[in-house]
């Protein structure tokens, strides 16, 4: 990230009282977050921070709690315990302000199917108070290679095309923080590569902070500076991809191998299920 952009961004979101770690204010501070549904604990005492300009990966098997954490960070689910601070502000108290400065995409979201791509994006552009919305939408549609679909109703799009409309929505307000829940899940390899390139480019040029969930370990290893590995609602390991690899596999590796980490954890679950 260019130093000038980084400095400008940091100055924008640092507020008095924001928690500091090693002299750097945290963009995301999640502390002792817990979510339970009757007898099931979806997220158990999870704490982590994300620094400005970082691409952090929130990974783990199905049911690890990744999506629940993202939804709690968006204010869609209330936690049972713990706190979330974004841009140095409490999500409980400053939800509206916080949500204006971030954006997201998730497979749980869809668009009104009868509305065209352009109409859907115009509605969201107005919600985020985007200046010159048509120009911004056109730029994004071109960036994600779907400019030819602008007048098509969403009902006639493939899942990959809908995913890209979701990504366009996520970039409408030039977010300082992006929460991306499996953004490449329905994309073919070429489209997934295009999206990864856009994300990395955005992070480099604008200093956008990204919290990313994915099952594609190759992808996570490639774009994330840091990984938070979750299992059954708790953090199992956190650090750079190589640190997580070494910690979980308990071997002195030279290169990250998150695929192996993932498989090792899944095998543990299978063995436990057999022994029970």
């Amino acid at each position: 990230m260019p130093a000038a952009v980084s400095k400008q961004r940091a100055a924008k979101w640092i507020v008095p009282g924001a928690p500091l770690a090693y002299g750097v204010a945290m963009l995301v501070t999640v502390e002792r977050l817990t979510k339970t549904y009757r007898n099931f604990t979806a997220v158990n005492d999870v704490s982590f921070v994300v620094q400005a300009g970082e691409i952090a990966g929130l990974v783990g098997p199905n049911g690890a709690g990744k999506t629940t954490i993202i939804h709690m960070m968006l204010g869609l689910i209330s936690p049972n315990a713990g706190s979330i601070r974004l841009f140095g502000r409490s999500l409980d108290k400053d939800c509206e302000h916080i949500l204006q400065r971030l954006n997201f995409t998730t497979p749980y979201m869809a668009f009104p199917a009868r509305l065209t791509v352009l109409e859907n994006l115009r509605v969201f552009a107005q919600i985020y108070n985007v200046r010159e919305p048509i120009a911004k939408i056109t730029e994004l549609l071109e960036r994600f290679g779907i400019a030819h679909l602008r007048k098509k109703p969403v009902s006639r799009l493939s899942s990959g095309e809908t995913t890209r409309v979701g990504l366009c929505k996520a970039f409408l307000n030039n977010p300082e923080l992006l929460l991306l829940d499996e953004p490449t899940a329905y994309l073919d390899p070429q489209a997934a590569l295009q999206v990864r390139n856009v994300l990395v480019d955005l992070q480099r040029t604008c200093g956008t902070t990204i919290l990313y969930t994915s099952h594609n370990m190759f992808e996570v290893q490639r774009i994330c500076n840091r990984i938070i590995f979750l299992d059954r609602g708790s953090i199992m390991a956190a650090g750079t991809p190589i640190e997580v690899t070494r910690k979980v596999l308990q071997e002195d590796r030279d290169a990250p191998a998150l695929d192996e980490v993932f498989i090792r954890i899944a095998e543990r679950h299978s063995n436990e299920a057999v022994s029970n």
Partner: protein
Amino acid sequence: MKPYRIKAVIRRHAYEVRRNANHITYMVYWPLVNIAVWGFFTLYLRHGDRLQPGVVNCLLGAVILWGLFNAFQRDMAVGFLEELWSRNLVGLFASPLTVSEYVTGLIIVTLAKAIVSLAVGSLVAWLFYHYDIFPVLLTLFPFILNLVLFALTIGVAVTGLIFRYTTKFQAMAWSFAGLLMPPSCVFYPLSSLPRSLRPIAAILPTTHSFEGMRKAIETGGFSTSHFKSGLELNLIYFILAIFFFRWMFESAKSRGLLVKME
């Protein structure tokens, strides 16, 4: 509340009206059918001199105003159901849009649609049955206001129920007004109800609106007591509905239902 976000909600529903023929059905088709059926009935009553013209006018006026009440509370709940059916709730409520902005936008859209329904019903009654509601519209306005406020209250409460219990309660969007119709004395005076039902009827703002409407059409006078009673009841119910909605919304959030609504 930010006006541009309320405008975004209006824009979203305006696009939906343009692209979804169901809305035209709701706004035009049903008012036409209702007025046609009741219009023929009043012609039949007039033809044999079976009833005085004042009663016939009251019947048509009641059909128009009940149509307005029904359309308002239904369209408000259906407007919200459309977000749920299209899985758009996550996108909306994870944005800076607040619940109060969303509900305000939805109310404005619903009001516009109800006015179209009212205009269609009134125009057809005037053209085909020579029933002109427009001269008494000014006298009826306070009662219409009370009807709209109660429809809004019910719309808010039903929307809260849908938030919490999802589509399990979606039938309420169409059927709740029907439950209120018998004790609301839409087509008959309060005195014609069985004694046991009268206390229930007396606590419904709709009853006071229709009683007031009948008086206005029959005598041309304005019933201050019916307007005042209706308004007071409305204020109580509206405040309760807001609390109920908040409770249901927070409960839905706590149970993670906003992201899993089906």
